[in-house]
């Protein structure tokens, strides 16, 4: 509950490890599910850029620098998280590390995604997410209302 530095996700995918690896590291395949059109392929130490195609986020540029590609085991890159604001230069700011870990599991492949380094992200960037999420604030307003009315 108090860890503000990383996010971890796990999903069991009903596909062999080689298939999942291709969906993650082949630029065209990655683009299909991540909803991005990449201009170049992924390569260790290289920057890959592209255009996000998620409705409402078409102004966003995808930009990642690959750290590791351990065949069918680990794929990782660095990027700027939630870099959605138009006209903001994120390039001088700290990045987060996204790691995709692949393991064999009965019935398919266990994929673990860890994004870490959020504690180094500037305070105002993290605060921005609040503005983007009015739902959370409606709930908060309701909490305050209940608090003052009780």
């Amino acid at each position, binding site marked *: *509950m*108090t860890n503000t530095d990383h996010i971890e*996700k796990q999903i069991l995918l009903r*596909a062999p490890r080689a298939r999942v690896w291709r969906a993650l590291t082949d630029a065209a*395949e990655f683009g299909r*599910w*991540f*909803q991005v059109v990449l201009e170049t392929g992924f390569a260790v130490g290289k920057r890959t850029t592209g255009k996000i195609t998620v409705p409402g986020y078409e102004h966003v540029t995808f930009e990642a620098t690959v750290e590791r590609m351990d065949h069918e085991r680990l794929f990782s890159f660095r990027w700027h998280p939630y870099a959605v604001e138009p006209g903001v230069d994120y390039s001088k700011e700290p990045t987060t590390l996204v790691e995709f870990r692949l393991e064999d599991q009965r019935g398919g492949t266990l994929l673990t995604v860890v994004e870490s380094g*959020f504690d180094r992200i500037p305070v105002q960037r993290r605060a921005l997410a*609040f503005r983007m999420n009015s739902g959370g604030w409606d709930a908060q307003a309701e909490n305050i209302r209940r608090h003052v009315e009780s």
Partner: protein
Amino acid sequence: MSRAKAFASPQARRAAPLFAALGDETRLLLVARLSANGPESITALSEGSDVTRQAVTKHLGVLARAGLARGQSRGRERIWQLEPGRLSEAREYLDQISRQWDVALDRLRTFLENEPR
């Protein structure tokens, strides 16, 4: 939306001190400790750590001003506890990114099911 507007928003103005208060190792440890153990006195909180009572008091003051913790007098001691509502706001940023990963991984699963080869 412009950067200036983002800063001018009441939400960002309200949230920034919250993250500033959490952006310190000792204060994060205090939050973790209060979260795990429930309300505790300053004496208990400074026991078994390198941090002095004075420093703990100072850090708790910062957390209190950010609305993250509150102290109540009990006899001669002050007992500190977390304000859980405020802490959940700090989680909101990660929750939002977390939800985006959920959506992305769900699309990956669908993609692999539709194109198994």
